[in-house]
């Protein structure tokens, strides 16, 4: 069964969606979408390093993205530049350096399009293991830091005052972001990973009344996007990443109808 590339892609996508669901909610709540983008852009550098040193891609991306995240935190502390400028600086310079390094690696055949937008054909059985084991670890850690992370998302000072150590939770969450990007890069591609994090969560926000519900709807939204997206990419021979994201956009538009209805009800 795992011989079929499409089944492999489906299993991989489902694994990714289960993890991006709850993480995406935090990305939306904490306004981290550009942070996610920056980490994803830096992933290209990680991929090129993996190729040049014959390293595992997910692992290499994880290391590079974590380093970029730590660099960002240091730059925020030590410079007077606004956060969005620093994000842009890191995102584009790491993308550029990654592309330059690719130029030097002319002896390797690179599927740039697959890297940027995801490629179902590329998902191997090893990738499945990485996605499911890595994903399970991410969810486990997220569950452990849920209380301090969520409390400090609502209000940092309350969390700090009542002894929850929000700074540690934030640092761990940053690492989890690097990890999800590392394991999902082959599926959705580095330009679209943030979409996978944000769009199902945004869809869920439109139809949920509590944080728990938003997480559940976000996971369901991600799963439906993966299934819809992958089947249509098979049907229309389109790239997997964009097809999944387009499917999630479709779900988001449907969720807008719900908002309109509830506003009407209020009036």
């Amino acid at each position, binding site marked *: 069964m795992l011989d079929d590339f499409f089944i492999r892609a489906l299993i991989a996508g489902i694994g990714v969606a289960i993890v991006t669901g709850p993480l995406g909610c935090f990305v*939306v*709540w904490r*306004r981290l979408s550009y942070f996610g983008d920056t980490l994803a852009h830096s992933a290209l550098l990680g991929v090129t390093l993996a190729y040049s040193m014959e390293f595992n891609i997910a692992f290499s991306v994880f290391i590079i993205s974590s380093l970029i995240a730590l660099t960002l935190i240091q730059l925020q502390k030590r410079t007077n530049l606004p956060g969005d400028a620093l994000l842009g600086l890191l995102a584009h310079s790491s993308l550029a350096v990654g592309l330059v390094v690719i130029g030097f690696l002319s002896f390797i055949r690179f599927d740039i399009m697959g890297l940027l937008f995801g490629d179902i054909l590329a998902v191997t059985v090893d990738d499945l293991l990485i996605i499911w084991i890595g994903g399970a670890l991410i969810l486990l850690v997220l569950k452990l830091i849920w*209380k301090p992370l*969520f*409390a400090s*998302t*609502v*209000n940092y*000072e*309350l*969390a*700090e*005052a*009542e*002894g*929850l150590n929000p700074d540690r939770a934030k640092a761990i969450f940053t690492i989890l972001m690097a990890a999800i990007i590392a394991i999902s890069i082959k599926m959705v591609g580095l330009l679209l990973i943030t979409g996978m994090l944000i769009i199902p969560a945004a869809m869920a*926000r439109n139809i*949920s*009344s*509590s*944080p*728990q*519900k*938003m997480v559940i709807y976000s996971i369901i939204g991600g799963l439906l996007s993966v299934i819809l997206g992958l089947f249509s990419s098979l049907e229309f021979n389109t790239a997997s990443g964009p097809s999944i994201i387009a499917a999630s956009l479709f779900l988001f538009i449907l969720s807008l109808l719900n908002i309109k209805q509830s506003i009407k009800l209020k009036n």
Partner: protein
Amino acid sequence: MSSEQNILVKLNKAGFSLNNKWLVKGVSLQVEKGKIVTLIGPNGSGKSTTAKIALGIYKKIDGSVEKYTNKIGYVPQKISIDWTLPLRVNDFMVLTESLDKESIDEALSLTGVIHLKDKNLGDLSGGEFQRVLLARAISKKPELLVLDEPVQGVDFTGEIALYELIKKISDELNCGILLISHDLHTVMSATDHVVCLNGHVCCSGSPMDVAKNNEYKALFGEQASQILSRYEHRHDHVHTSEGEIKKN
């Protein structure tokens, strides 16, 4: 009375500066079990800053803080909650500690907002939200309560009731309370110890002592010290009839 083991938090010549400007400096105070310590002072005198130093929110401080408890309930003066979160009152109650339904309901009933339990936090009025904040802080039965203007925006009758509740909580839970208040009436009535701040500690002591202090008079005016004498008169009646006080 003030035996060492009753101390919940103690500030030793604590101060905090931001951008080379001292917000507050040289504050020494301690909060003990079952005692209410109140910080008073004009705007910008460092009351909230002192509370945040005591809570450990500010870390790079001058002097030192000794904290002997981790069971803390905090009602901040300003709270900005991001409405991108779908958050009901019920979710907010268990924000920093998991509680059973009874504790949540009890606390919400005490502050008079049990009917708002399933409402979205963003739909509450200022006064309602303030009551929820107080309910959340007391629901976990803390050893130390830090209340930064806990009744702001609450209607007049509610204000009196909430201050009575705070006093009751301090007695029942035997918890220490660090209270910041602008309402001198309340301060002078329910408090065990008053610290008058103006960037530093102007004066401190029992409400009676502070009211007589010249620096206090200079800060709040002659009228402020008369509040106390007026209040003291009223205080005699608290024990005979609670209803009369509410009419005043």
